[in-house]
């Protein structure tokens, strides 16, 4: 405990770095997954190929990705951009299916009414399908957030600063307290992400609580 207090500023710095490395890809991944999921939900032949491809991306080991990306992107190995790109790929892998499922979960009679009012393509996506898919997408985001927080810690193996450092460093020094601090800090960070996503999702979906009100 005293170790944690002594190192509070370092913990906070690394937590901030961790949050950035895990959080920014969540946003970027969502931005990419939305159009992909939309395409997948509209065209049945695209659906299969898109979902298989993005699903496969998730099976690439993170360490391999962190090491391979610099040669693909032309970045330095220590450049945090590698981690951001890798995490974005994982987020896209997780979210594309969720977005596609969310968008196609709209009640058929609601969809038909929308079509009959002359809502076409993008307008229907924006005004009807997307708002109704928010709860499903938020659930997917929560999974992706936890997954991101845990995968980012692996990046300490290639020397990029974040909470994972306490795990590798604590292990190297045989100092369990430091490992515990790293684990707990990761947990807390994941919780914060989860909370933020829930709050945003609730704010966007007042109608889901209408029945209870």
């Amino acid at each position: 405990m005293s170790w944690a207090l002594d190192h509070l500023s370092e913990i906070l710095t690394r937590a901030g770095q961790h949050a950035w490395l895990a959080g920014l890809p969540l946003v970027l991944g969502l931005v990419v997954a939305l159009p992909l999921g939309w395409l997948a939900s509209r065209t049945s032949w695209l659906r299969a190929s898109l979902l298989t491809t993005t699903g496969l991306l998730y099976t690439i080991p993170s360490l391999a990705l962190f090491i391979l990306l610099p040669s693909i992107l032309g970045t330095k190995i220590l450049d945090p951009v590698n981690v951001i790109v890798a995490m974005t790929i994982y987020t896209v892998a997780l979210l594309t299916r969720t977005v596609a499922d969310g968008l196609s979960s709209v009640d058929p009679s609601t969809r038909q009414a929308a079509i009959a009012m002359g809502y076409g393509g993008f307008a229907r996506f924006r005004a009807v399908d997307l708002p109704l898919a928010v709860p499903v997408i938020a659930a997917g985001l929560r999974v992706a957030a936890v997954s991101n927080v845990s995968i980012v810690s692996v990046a300490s193996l290639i020397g990029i600063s974040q909470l994972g450092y306490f795990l590798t460093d604590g292990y190297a020094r045989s100092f369990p307290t430091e490992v515990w601090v790293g684990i707990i800090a990761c947990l807390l960070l994941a919780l914060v992400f989860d909370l933020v996503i829930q709050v945003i999702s609730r704010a966007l979906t007042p109608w889901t609580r209408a029945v209870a009100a």
Partner: protein
Amino acid sequence: MIRFEGVTKRYGDADSGSADGGSRAGGGGDQGAVAVDNLTLEAPTGQITVLVGPSGCGKTTTLRMVNRMITPTSGTISVNGRDTASMDVAELRRGMGYVIQHAGLFPHRTVVDNVMTVPRLLGVDKRQARARAMELIERVGLDPAMARRYPAQLSGGQQQRVGVARALAADPPVMLMDEPFSAVDPVVREQLQNEFLRLQSELGKTILFVTHDIDEAVKLGDQVAVLRVGGVLAQLAPPATLLADPVDDFVAGFVGRDRGYRALSFAAAPELSLTDEPTVRLGATAEQVRAVGSPWVLAVGDAGEPVGWVRAAAVDHEVTRDLLHRGGTVASTSGSLRALLDAALSSPSGRGVVAGDDGRLVGTITAAEVVPAIEARRTATTAGEVPEGASTR
């Protein structure tokens, strides 16, 4: 006027033209199943044309071809003389209200926002669209306080009313309605039907209405198109003609039993001489009731409106509402022969109660007195003088 000319829809074509986002398209193995077969039909302006027929006979397909949610395989559909195929699809659809079975309200929008949808899409400013929406919400019989609710907070019948209000919001000349009242219980359905007829009498829209319920078709339609499986038009006729003169066994079977009796709904009650009925007021004493000298005595309210029959022997002190017999129906002088006959048949005294348009008692009539009027009508009808427009609903 909506006009179908030789319209055929065959599913399973290369271009199935379904607007469902491809969910059903391409799934059908039965290559080239004909859903609508060479349909030629006119839905006159300002009238309700009902499409009725057994499940799978192509009613929904027919309806959705009008707003091009489904593309016809061949033939043309025109609305007020304009070929729909040549129109911009969004413009076409926004000029038509569309109401479906489960209302299809947007769950994420409040009632008033749902109703505002099409006017907003058409560029009407927010305040104006809202005012119009509030007016419509009241017009379809909803409490304005419900405007802020979400659809999930409404009953099925209330949602259906919102669906109707939403379809009416942009004041489209044409309404397409696909079994709009079939998902609610019979009591609410009847309410919705009656209010729908009242609204239509004010608005005079050109309506294409789909149902599989022949009673609903006969009640609501100015004309009824009966379709048979395979999408072939079997008969197009006003309801009275449909009941009186089905073209073939299929239509006769579909129109169903009690046709003769139900056809009386469309025959206006003739001016019959009614019998004066002695009455007592609610609250009358046992002596006053027995003084009438009849086993069943008709009670009236303060305004002279008939409230029910009371059995003289059952009155101990005075006539109270809970002593009233509830079985008898009241016919109106401006009602139908069916209502008149029903009033007589349902009355415990055998004397059917007839009230004027103001609700006050006019007199009573027995079934034996109604039957000659029915006979007289039949003679007149077979002589070729169909009392058209005698529709009384």
